[in-house]
């Protein structure tokens, strides 16, 4: 097939009109009229000015006191169950909005615990000691184009990050700060790499290829080999997530192409004992899976109703929770049982469950819900998060996140649990649970 990028670049020859004058006229035609100017009595003006000065001075005093670096309190001891969360009630409080990420810098996609801190990656790379305050370390490696990282894992020489940059891209780092691009794939063969997982002896990355999903393996993070899918288990499939499971790997996504009928898509799971030989299992119709995570000595997978992808009515509104999204569990990756579905805030037209993680006392699932806008055109996604200790009873914890820090947040795009922290990210930022609250130093 002809290089798509070259073909789309032909659009650059299409001259766009200059509409700025028209835009200014449109804006002025409906701009609000300014409020009338009112004359005030001199005494009122003087009192207002005096109070304003007092308020400004007080605010400056407070800011000056807070300008000193904050020393973190002692780290709390992690609960005995191995995860940072002991009870469902824990998740209802204690979330902090991450600082230093910067909304102008594209997306925040994945975070890992590394050595004594954390590394966040997406449209750039950030590092942090406590998971709250982040330091931007660099733009994406080696190019000044639109490169981005979809997922990051500890492995190889330190860290391995996969994503896209007009073709699949893999980069490695020993410390989270110095990065080297090791792969920049053929755009036609492998478009984007979406996830990566490191096993004992092998690193596996999954992505989108020309005939379906693509899978790469590496012994060291530096040299990669694309898997020959002779058995066709990845044909006509898209894989969203891969995770290490026991001594092998599990991947999750969907199968089904061509038709505009979303019901023809099926939720699929792939298992492999070694990262090289894979077996596919279809577990549901009308849904595709977005994440699979280790949970309760087995696995948990989450998915949502398949997008029809055709026409302006691209999502058929559904009313039953079970038709909107699903949660499944498996002891071995092969036999899957559907669990109860979280309750979604009604009314809702669509649900997207994107991430799941075992946070210690149970599983936290995040994503978003959507209502069609006026005229069934505009879509408004809002965050959604739910917790379950047993897979049967769910507690909505969406309100736990301080939306004032990120008022523009739509869907939540991931959840990661480390020994001491839980991270929930959306497109432009991050919330963190488990970090000690800041303590002001004495002045």
């Amino acid at each position, binding site marked *: *097939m*002809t290089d*798509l*990028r070259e*073909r*789309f670049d*032909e*659009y*650059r*020859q*299409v001259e*766009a*009109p*200059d*509409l*700025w*004058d*028209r*835009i*200014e006229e*449109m*804006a002025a035609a*409906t701009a609000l009229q300014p409020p009338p100017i009112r004359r005030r009595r001199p005494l009122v003006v003087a009192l207002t000015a005096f109070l304003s000065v007092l308020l400004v001075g007080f605010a400056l005093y407070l800011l000056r006191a807070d300008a000193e670096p904050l020393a973190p309190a002692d780290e709390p001891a992690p609960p005995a169950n191995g995860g940072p969360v002991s009870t469902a009630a824990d998740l209802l409080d204690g979330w902090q909005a991450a600082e230093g990420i910067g*909304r*102008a810098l*594209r*997306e925040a996609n994945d975070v890992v615990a590394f050595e004594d801190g954390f590394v966040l990656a*997406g*449209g750039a790379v950030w590092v942090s000691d406590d998971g709250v305050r982040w330091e931007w370390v660099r733009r994406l490696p080696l190019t000044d*184009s*639109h490169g*981005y990282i*979809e997922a990051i894992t500890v492995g190889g020489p330190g860290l391995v990050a996969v*994503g896209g940059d*007009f073709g699949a891209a893999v980069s490695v780092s020993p410390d989270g700060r110095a990065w080297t691009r090791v792969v920049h794939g053929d755009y036609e063969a492998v*478009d*984007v790499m979406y996830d990566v997982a490191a096993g004992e002896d092998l690193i596996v990355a999954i992505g*989108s290829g020309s005939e379906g999903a693509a899978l790469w393996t590496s012994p060291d993070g530096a040299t990669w080999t694309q898997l020959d899918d002779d058995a066709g288990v990845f044909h006509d499939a*898209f894989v*969203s997530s891969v995770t290490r499971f026991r001594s092998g790997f599990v991947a999750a996504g*969907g199968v089904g*192409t*061509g038709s505009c009928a979303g019901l023809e898509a099926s939720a699929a799971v792939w298992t492999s004992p070694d990262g090289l030989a894979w077996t596919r299992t279809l577990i549901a119709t009308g849904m*595709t899976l977005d994440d699979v995570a280790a949970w309760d000595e087995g696995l948990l997978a989450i998915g949502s109703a*398949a*997008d029809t*992808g*055709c026409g*302006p009515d*691209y999502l058929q509104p559904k009313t039953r929770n079970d038709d909107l999204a699903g949660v499944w569990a498996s002891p071995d990756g092969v036999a899957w049982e559907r669990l109860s579905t979280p309750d979604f805030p009604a009314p809702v037209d669509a649900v*997207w469950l*994107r991430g799941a993680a075992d946070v210690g006392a149970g599983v936290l699932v995040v994503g*978003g819900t959507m209502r069609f806008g006026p*005229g069934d*055109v*505009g879509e408004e*996604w809002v965050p959604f998060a739910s917790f379950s200790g047993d897979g049967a009873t769910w507690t909505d914890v969406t309100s736990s996140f301080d939306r004032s820090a990120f008022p*523009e947040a*739509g*869907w939540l795009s991931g959840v990661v649990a480390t020994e001491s922290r839980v991270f929930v990210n959306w497109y432009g930022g991050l919330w963190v649970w488990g970090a000690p609250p800041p303590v002001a130093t004495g002045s």
Partner: protein
Amino acid sequence: MTRSEPTQRSTPHGQVEAVYREHFAHLWRALLAYSGDPDIASDAAAEAFAQALRRDGDLRTPERWVWKAAFRIAAGMLKERSRFVALGPAPGAEWPVPFELHDALMQVSPRQRAALFLHYYGGYSPGEIAELIGSTPSAVRVHLFRGRKRLSRSMAEVSR
């Protein structure tokens, strides 16, 4: 009508104009690929920027806001006019377009078009595309996956 001089970037008006100078052409081309209609592209883009000006500084990220607004406005116009396959430029109109690709693009759904264009023309990630067109990254991945296959078939037919 004379072209107005760029306003200082420090003012809200100047910020929106700066976004216009940097992004309008790309946005217009994306809307053209999405809608297949240069009039819809112009109307949607102009309305989005006009609304941004009316907000008078009440936008945290004007660039992202304008892109999202423009696509939603264009989606509304498409729905209203029930246009899914463009017939090409109006008689007498003169605008150069890569017709082979354009004709092939018109055979896929509007969202697939938007995803394909933003990904292959702009290099945007599925997450960014989802933000721009009001979708989810998963849906965008499906749009890209299915759109690529349908586009390749359509281009093969157009090339015959």
